[in-house]
């Protein structure tokens, strides 16, 4: 039944100055990395992809950057506070191949953390590029240290490779071969990663974010041009061979009213 389930926050992890992870007890069943949930703070409801899916301890979590009114209200919450959660929704990442390159930009690392841990449980090797503006904003460096081969990069060079995630990916692809690439982050970054994947003839998956309302595939709010695919249903994860059909990818998205907003 598509109704919010009200749950208590079990613990909160301060990841960076502006990013926190909120963890809940959750009966993990078929949740897939890359899928999302609708989070209800009793004022508004927004989609968030799961950054933690732990079938052993039955925990689930979201990693949220404080960017506005909604995220601010969640950032003020502590263990014991309640949120409504409904989902999981949509199509997540498919885990396939023996060796995968994952590229996460900023808080786009959230679903990739869940992905890397699930892939690791399935004996799939993951090289994970974690990109951030500066060292203090790098996510999950400790948590994923033993799960994936971490390759950090910062725009300002304060830690790891100096430059964008796309530049490090280009370097890494020169000397390594991968069965698949997965990426989540700013759409312009993902567009470049998908182009790179195509150049190297590696299948890629990317995760799109669009304004959402019903999240169950009926209201049409998150439909993309030109296929009409619903990000909440056919997505949010798409394959690189589908990207040519999503003409708005990397170019524009629609507001709550449905007006086009260029990236």
């Amino acid at each position: 039944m598509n109704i919010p389930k009200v749950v208590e926050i079990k613990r909160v992890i301060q990841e960076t100055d502006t990013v926190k992870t909120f963890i809940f007890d959750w009966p993990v069943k078929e949740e897939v990395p890359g899928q999302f949930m609708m989070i209800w703070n009793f004022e508004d409801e927004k989609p968030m992809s799961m950054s933690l899916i732990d079938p052993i301890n039955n925990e689930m979590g979201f990693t949220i950057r404080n960017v506005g009114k909604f995220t601010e209200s969640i950032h003020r919450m502590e263990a014991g506070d309640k949120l409504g959660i409904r989902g999981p929704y949509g199509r997540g990442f498919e885990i396939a191949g023996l060796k995968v390159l994952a590229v996460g930009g900023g808080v786009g690392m959230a679903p990739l953390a869940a992905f890397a841990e699930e892939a690791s449980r399935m004996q799939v090797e993951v090289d994970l590029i974690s990109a951030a503006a500066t060292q203090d904003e790098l996510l999950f460096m400790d948590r994923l240290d033993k799960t994936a081969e971490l390759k950090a990069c910062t725009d300002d060079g304060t830690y790891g490779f100096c430059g964008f995630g796309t530049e490090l990916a280009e370097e890494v692809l020169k000397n390594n071969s991968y069965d698949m690439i997965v990426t989540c982050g700013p759409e312009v970054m993902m567009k470049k990663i998908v182009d790179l994947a195509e150049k190297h003839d590696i299948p890629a998956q990317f995760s799109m974010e669009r304004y959402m309302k019903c999240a169950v595939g009926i209201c049409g709010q998150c439909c993309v041009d030109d296929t009409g695919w619903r990000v909440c249903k056919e997505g949010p994860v798409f394959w690189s061979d589908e990207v040519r059909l999503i003409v708005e990818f990397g170019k524009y998205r629609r507001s709550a009213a449905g007006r086009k907003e260029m990236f």
Partner: protein
Amino acid sequence: MLETDICKIKMKNPTMLAAGIMGNTAASLNWAARSGAGAVVTKSFSMEANPGYSNPTTVEVTGGFINAIGLSNPGVEALKDELNKLDGSVPAVASIYGANSNEFQNVAIKIDGMVDMIELNVSCPHASGGCGSSIGQDPNATAKIVKAVKKEVNIPIIVKLTPNVTDLVEIAEAAQKAGCDALTLINSVGPGMRIDLETAQPILHNKFGGVSGPAIKPIALRCVYEVYEAVNVPIIGVGGIRDYKDSVEFLFAGASCVQIGTAVYYEGMDVFGDICQGLDKFMVSKDYSSVADMVGKAHRN
């Protein structure tokens, strides 16, 4: 065999995508057409952009959903860009709304000729600012808007009515008398609500929303049946239709064609093709040679 027509507009089959389901972009309307819909109806739009209500805007209940999206739309100018990108494979209906006859007229004039028909939404149960069912619950207000739009445009005008009235026939007759070319019955029911047990808080941000889905089908069917006996204009049946059997019931009750909405959740976009396939088989097995032969059959027994 499934070919039919409404207001002299030919349809390859009697299914339409209902207003408010997908339908805010050409891409999603074209997808519905590719999936087998005989016609497509846009999400309701107005002169100016409207972001609608805050989330949660949709919640599930036994037998369907409650929604209070709040008539969000990018405004008529942005919608015109979308209408220009329709693939033209099936007739397109523009659903429009406003608070008064002037607003309806202005939007209708902008799109006259860009679509095959206009559906007047005077029935949204969760609209604010004098839009939606506050018009459709009043026969005089309904008639005034129908007349005003009819005067300004050349394409057929459909009026979508709300079941949330004491006497639907009175409103239907008023719309017909005012010159509408067809009626769509019904908009979502209620409004209804759902309350969270943990927090004792209404789940929808707007508290109340329109009830749709299989639970409202018996009500929709009764509305079609009742209005069919009172009016001469064709009726488009909508409300809880999920499969060909539901569609047949609506045709028998007096609908000339049917709209599919919430069933897109239950059955996916294949619902149009599936209904057509089932309907085709049913017609062969029962010896019906056309959709029109079935329309109103329940009244002849």
